[in-house]
């Protein structure tokens, strides 16, 4: 019995090392984050507005197979998140130049802090949903902050990017998809 106790640290280490080995040899690149939601309709979650003068959003704000609408970008942000600040100019530019509506999903944030943040940096969002408890975050399958989803006219998520947007990614991944969606619609 006593022996087993002394073997415990070794056992735990083997588990940890095994994990590292598995990850190293067979793991896929963890930076690529698959989303179970890709190709699926956006979640049903109804999000209350962050601002008094701007609506929140919910399922009805996206298109559906029966009633198509314009494609939408959903951008998850929070005032406490440094990279969100870094990507903000690109989100703003996208909203302006690509004439695509961007919905903001303000998550796990304090309302006043978020309002200050938007006043400080500018507000490019067409609608902003407020999710202080992070419930919608779970429904959307948010992995990290910031995160951006592209939703097509039928209300299906077609693309997702975890982490801040940057020009190269926007050029290579996002714009072609947005333009393709618009071409369809």
């Amino acid at each position: 019995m006593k022996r087993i106790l002394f073997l415990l640290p070794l056992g735990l280490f083997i588990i940890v090392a095994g994990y590292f080995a598995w990850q190293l040899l067979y793991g896929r690149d963890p930076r690529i984050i698959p989303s179970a939601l890709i190709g699926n309709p956006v979640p049903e979650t109804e999000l209350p507005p962050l601002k008094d003068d701007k609506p929140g959003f919910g399922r009805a704000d996206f298109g559906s197979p029966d009633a198509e609408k314009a494609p939408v970008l959903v951008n998850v942000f929070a005032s406490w998140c440094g990279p969100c600040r870094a990507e903000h100019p690109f989100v703003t530019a996208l909203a302006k130049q690509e004439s695509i509506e961007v919905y903001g999903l303000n998550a796990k944030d304090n309302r006043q802090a978020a309002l200050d943040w938007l006043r400080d940096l500018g507000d490019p969002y067409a609608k902003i949903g407020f999710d202080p408890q992070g419930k919608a975050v779970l429904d959307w399958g948010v992995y990290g902050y910031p995160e951006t989803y592209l939703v097509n006219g039928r209300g299906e998520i077609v693309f997702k990017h975890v982490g801040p947007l940057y020009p190269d990614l926007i050029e290579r991944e996002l714009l072609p998809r947005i333009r393709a969606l618009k071409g369809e619609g």
Partner: protein
Amino acid sequence: MIAEIGHFAMTLALGLALFQAILPMAGAARGEPRWMKLAEPAAIGQLACLLVAFVALTNAYVTSDFSVRNVVENSHSLKPLLYKVSGVWGNHEGSLLLWVTVLALFGALVAVFGRKLPPGLKARTLSVQAMIAVGFLLFTLLTSNPFERMIPAPLEGRDLNPLLQDPGLAFHPPMLYIGYVGLSVVFSFAVAALIEGKVDAAWARWVRPWTLLAWSFLTAGIALGSWWAYYELGWGGFWYWDPVENASFMPWLLATALLHSAIVVEKRDTLKTWTILLAIMAFSLSLIGTFLVRSGVLTSVHAFASDPDRGIFILLLLAISIGGSLALYAWRAPTLTAGGLFRPISREGALVLNNLLLAAAAGTVFLGTLYPLFLEVVTGDKISVGPPYFNATFVPIMIPLLIALGVGPLMPWKRGDLPQALRILTAAFVGAVAVTAVTAVAILGELGYALIGFAVAAWLVGAAATELWRRAKPTSRVSAGDAFGRLFKLSRASWGMTAAHVGVAIVVAGATGTTLLTAELITKTRPGETVTLGGYAFTLEDVTEARGPNYGAQRGTFTVREEGTVGGGQVLTAERRVYVASGQETTEAGIGSSMMRDLYAVIGDSDGSGGYTIRLYVKPLAPWLWIGSALMVLGGLLSLSDRRLRIGAPVRSGTASATSAPAPAE
């Protein structure tokens, strides 16, 4: 040419390390004193070689030798000299060279200052130390050679990440490495003791100074990193619970536990197997910290300097060193004899509680850092664990630890009496309650957590002061005046402990003030306008363009006065820098410190019509974080300088004692 000399010196160091790993160990096993003796010159030679290599790389940086790939990738000819030098360890290859150099430094220190160690233990310790060196020198030479040439040589380098071009961060890695690698000595001692099958009070006495040294530097390194995050990232936070911070925090927690459990081994000859395990785990977590987390393997194996070979190599090294030592532990530790028994309420009991709580805290941080990854392997789910997790798990473990910290030092060994110990602490307790009441009135009970934080801090200070006073005045027969005189004759270890414990209290108070009582304001303002926050009036005097050696900056000057006063005031200078080579921006917060608070200002974007976004904070007690950390380091070093640690082992008489240098090794 100089780069080739450096490369050659590293190879030579590998040869010496191989030699040092094998011969002394074999000598100790076969009882060959001459073989065992060889460990010393080998350890010193290894250090000499690595110093040559390190100087060679530093030379390449200082002279901006762009034929060396490593210099091209991490330096720039316009960079100030300080950052050319700190660029040496601001990258993977160079930091590895620093790591093995510090490892050799510690080996040589044991060789030189460990004169009074039993020859067998010394030979084995140095041999284990050399085994670690062999592994990491091989890794450096085979996969991460800092001396690799680049032909043709480019005209200019790509510059060091501007965030790292900062005095705080220039010295952060060497400090941290001395701490991490210092734990290697303790690890080597533990493995050597397992091989010998003997752990006794003398062993603990030899190990404790090395733990203290490593702990002091680790504390300083972590504090420097935290200070850097505080003023450079511009968000006013000092701890973000990110994996890199956690990686340095886990070994610190275990080193703290080890520091305390070694006392029990020394004084009471018990808790041996636990202490050995702590020694192994503290260094193992340092290894995991330096090599897995810092290189990004934790978040992404593929990010490991984009070279999977390195990942496999490192994993093998870790498996051999950590797995090997833990296997040795499982095999040999059960044979170590247990020492004296003790009651749960006793000094030992308190130290065991300290150890359990610290280990639990380290486990909590470990889980928080790794759990998301494990979960992903098992279920494929991705989750993120952030500050809320750590606040919910780490803080509740710390509170009982801090309360017990007050009582522990007052308990007698073997068998104590809790009510009696508590009676002694009445004054401290009353003080704590008084501060609690004052705080409660001041903030109207709004922030319960702040209250608890300050109460715990006051409790700690009171208890530490009481304990020190009781040492000076052990019975009522000693008059207060005499006791005051005796205070200054107390051992440095006593003062060291008191200083470190008071340091913890000050850090707790600082962290409480900084996180819970901060006033914050983000607003737009024009030069000449005044904004008030937390009782202070911040005036943005002007915004000018400034030039540094390798960056351009927008510099905002603020004058801060207490609200309602005119004239005087404190001047804060905040900058936003854009670095020439990379175009990357950094913020330099303008910070005005006084004993009771920091004023903190950050200048942001211009709105194009003369207004600027500014971020202001008033952070009560923020300087206490650094004062408390410094006090902890000071406590560690004071304790390290105590004569008893140097003289512990029986001194040989006559000629032998003439050679025993007074050094902290014994």
